[in-house]
């Protein structure tokens, strides 16, 4: 069983390689299989998920501590695989640019999240984030090279800052091993020289999570970007960054004051700013991106409590966020470009409309969906830690987010569909049994996440304990 622990990663990378190589060296076969490739990729991801759930329960350390398999890794990897499988299956493939590329990059992005989740040291964390971000950028570059270039430059700078910050921490602690670091940092004074590089590292993580500054990566939400590239940027890239944040905050727990205030400020800005931005924008795809950003703020707020209830709740919420933020834009298809084109989707594409509504409501934290359960759990942890100012900020952001989500849902169900001639060239998402099934699966997964909140939250709490938090 131990040998199978990292089989899911192997399956995912091999799947991505097969898809890319098949398109390059067997174009005729690739064309013939064109309609079935998304099935194939979704099946690969689901097989990887199955193996992860079966073999991933074996806790252990590999490659001299370079990779670890703990409850947190199991949780984060399973969330990423499920989210990617649904996104690939539900995507509106006719509007994606390159089938092979658009199938391989989500798998690589999911692989990046898995690497980050299994990382035993700083190098693994950094590498995982960069792999996910690179996959997202590559997807974005297919249609928005200008935006991708800007993100590449900004992301490169962020990556360098992250690496620099982590290197300084390594020099201070004398180890890059995340579990060992807690022990080494115990008793170390939280000084200003340590605060600055840690703040830089968290700043770059916040950038990768599309948190701050929101407007830099906001271009990925804009209409010209393909829906699946938005999924990667708002969903998987953010998930990788937040997974890194969970691991690093756990490792740096003994010197919590060096990042606590910074994390709280980012959380407040993101919760309120994300909700306000979601309310201000009109395009549904941008709205879902900002809603995801606002919910990321709740995750950071949970992490700022520095104890296992807060981190466990944040991990639970992270799972819900990953699924909704990754699959939501994919389900939306090209219609997310403008508000008017979404009108009447509930009549025209009922499966997609239901799934999208649930994603929006979950990201907004509306009851009784997964996001609400996660945010409530984080709120209880914040209350337990006496952080009522963070709680108040989150609640304000929550009101804004729910209002924004209801604004889009009313379009789906309460407006009549607009005529084809007024769609400005934007076609309805494709309808097939496969895509409809994926949308239904998403519509089942989000309520099921709250229905089975007890075991999932239990696993999330075990995750936090696995990271060394008590």
């Amino acid at each position: 069983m131990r040998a199978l622990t990292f089989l899911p990663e192997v399956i995912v990378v091999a799947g991505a390689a097969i898809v890319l190589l098949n398109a390059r060296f067997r174009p005729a076969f690739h064309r013939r299989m064109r309609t079935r490739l998304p099935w194939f990729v979704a099946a690969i991801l689901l097989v990887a998920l199955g193996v992860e759930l079966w073999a991933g329960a074996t806790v252990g350390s590999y490659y001299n501590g370079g990779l670890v398999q703990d409850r947190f890794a199991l949780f984060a990897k399973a969330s990423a695989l499920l989210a990617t499988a649904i996104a690939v299956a539900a995507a509106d493939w006719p509007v994606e640019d390159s089938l092979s590329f658009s199938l391989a990059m989500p798998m690589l992005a999911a692989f990046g999240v898995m690497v980050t989740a299994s990382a035993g040291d700083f190098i693994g964390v950094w590498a995982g984030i960069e792999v996910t971000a690179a996959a997202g950028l590559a997807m974005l570059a297919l249609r928005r090279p200008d935006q991708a270039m800007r993100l590449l430059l900004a992301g490169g700078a962020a990556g360098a800052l992250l690496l620099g910050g982590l290197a300084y921490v390594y020099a201070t602690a004398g180890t890059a091993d995340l579990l060992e670091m807690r022990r080494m940092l115990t008793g170390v004074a939280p000084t200003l020289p340590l605060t600055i590089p840690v703040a830089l590292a968290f700043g770059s993580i916040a950038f990768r999570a599309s948190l701050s500054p929101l407007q830099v990566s906001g271009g990925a939400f804009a209409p010209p970007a393909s829906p699946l590239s938005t999924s990667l940027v708002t969903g998987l890239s953010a998930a990788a960054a937040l997974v890194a944040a969970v691991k690093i905050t756990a490792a740096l727990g003994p010197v919590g004051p060096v990042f606590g205030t910074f994390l709280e400020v980012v959380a407040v800005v993101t919760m309120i700013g994300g909700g306000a931005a979601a309310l201000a924008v009109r395009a549904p795809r941008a709205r879902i991106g900002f809603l995801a950003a606002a919910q990321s703020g709740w995750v950071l707020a949970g992490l700022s409590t520095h104890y296992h209830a807060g981190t466990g709740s944040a991990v639970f919420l992270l799972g819900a966020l990953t699924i909704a933020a990754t699959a939501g834009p994919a389900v939306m298809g090209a219609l997310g470009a403008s508000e008017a084109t979404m009108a009447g989707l509930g009549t025209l594409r009922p499966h997609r409309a239901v799934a999208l509504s649930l994603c929006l409501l979950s990201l907004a934290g509306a009851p009784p969906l997964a996001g609400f359960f996660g945010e409530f759990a984080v709120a209880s942890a914040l209350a337990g830690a006496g952080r009522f100012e963070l709680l108040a900020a989150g609640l304000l952001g929550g009101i804004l987010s729910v209002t924004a989500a209801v604004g889009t849902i009313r379009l789906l169900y309460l407006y009549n569909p607009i005529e084809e001639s007024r769609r400005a060239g934007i076609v309805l998402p494709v309808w097939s049994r496969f895509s409809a099934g994926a949308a239904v699966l998403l519509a089942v997964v989000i309520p099921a996440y709250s229905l089975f909140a007890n075991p999932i939250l239990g696993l999330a709490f075990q995750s936090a304990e696995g990271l060394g938090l008590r």
Partner: protein
Amino acid sequence: MIAAALHGFSAATPSPAPIPGAGLFTASYLLSICIWIPAVVALVIAVIPNPRGRYDTVIRQVAFFTNLLLMFVMFIAYNQFESFLPNVQYEEKIPWLPQIGAIYHLGVDGPSMVLLILSGLIGIIAVLASAGVRERVRSYFALLLLAQTCVTGAVASHDLFVLTLFWAAAIIPIALLILGWGGPRREAAAWRLTGYWGVGVAALLLAVMAIYAGSGGTSFDMDVALKSALAPRTQVIVALALIVAAATRLPLFPFHGWVRDVYAEAPIGVIVLIAGSATRLGAYVLMRVLVAAEPDGARVLSPLIAGIAVVTVIYAAVAAMRTADIRHAGGYLALVPGAITVFGLAALTPLGIAGAVLSLFTGGMAAALIAGAFHTVSDRAQTRAVAVLSGLAPRMPKLAWLTVLAALGVLGVPLMATFTSNEMTFFGAFKTQPVGAFGIALGLALVAISLAVLLQRVMFGRPNPDAPAVSDTSLSETWYLALLAGALLWVGIVPGGPKIPGTDVPLFDPGIMNVMVADIPEIAAPYTGTTTP
């Protein structure tokens, strides 16, 4: 009757009375059935195909008979409720999120049983009032049933997590109902409702979290979280948050900003649901969490609560007198019963609290009746302008009668159930809030003037020859208004329920007054210095 009530609540010692048929029907998950059946039916309605509205009538019937079935189940629960027991009944306890101490804990005591019956009745009446809905019938009734699920869930919850969940969830279906089927200014109405109720949800969550943290951060179960003594300062903070939550939902001045637009623009069935049961949750939370569990906070802030109630009644009367739109007038007047309920709670005496509990039921009926009647008048007269409406009574006699009954219901005249609840509230509050009692009396006098002026102008004045054509109520409108008026009269005439002649055995209705007493002595115990076993 009032004397009996006064005696009963000064030393409430209810005793078991044999009810024919009691114990015939038992169900382990009775409350869950009441909560989740509408949700399941809503889901079914939402997914069944309805090409070109072919099954619109069937959908209406399904919604109606679902509510009828629910009312039947609730009536059984009401009949078999053991009013001599002070503890929670029909309890269901399933661990939900043990990591944070949240339990799927349902249960009802006397006050919640009263609200549960109110919710069931309002469910039927809201469906009847929605008979005129012609567009997207499937979505409408699915959302209406979901909204009902939220209200019933909040009433039956005995865990602060479950309460918050249902309380917050009610916003979405109601906002969508207004957005989809409202009048010309529906967007403004829906966003105002979302904004105000959203603030209320945030305030409630803050209060719940403060209680949770103050009680050791182990459980949201009301039996644990509300039984631990918080520091007085924390109680005051919790009380302030709860007052904001209640004031946005009920609503009370100055958090009433959504009332005018919502009661004017929402479809009539939604108005009935909001005014009748959804808004009563505000006062219910105030009673359940603040008055029953945070006595220090309640004592400190009771003058503030009484003051808000007084200002709300006076404001409602003056605003209704000055408005030029009859639907706005109905919305303002619907504020009055809620303010009286809250005033009863501010009294912090057993009689005042009992009056407030009865007022939850009677106030819900009266608010729904006045808002619904004025809305229907404007529909049938084809105008909302008070200046145009005149001398309608001869041309719409049924509606005129029902509107007069609505006005009497708001005022609380004898034979109306609001009379009993108002009197109990006043008598209960006179000792502890004398200035407030005079203020409320003054406010009610203004309400009477306002109603008299409105009725004289709209119903009994000289007919306006330039006004649009007028028609009387349709069958469904007559039924929904008559049911509301009938419930007010029934409880007003036999608050203790009808008895088999010559005996003390209840006939089929044990009586709201008898059912609601369970747990009231316990709620009032901190203010009387007594402890209950």
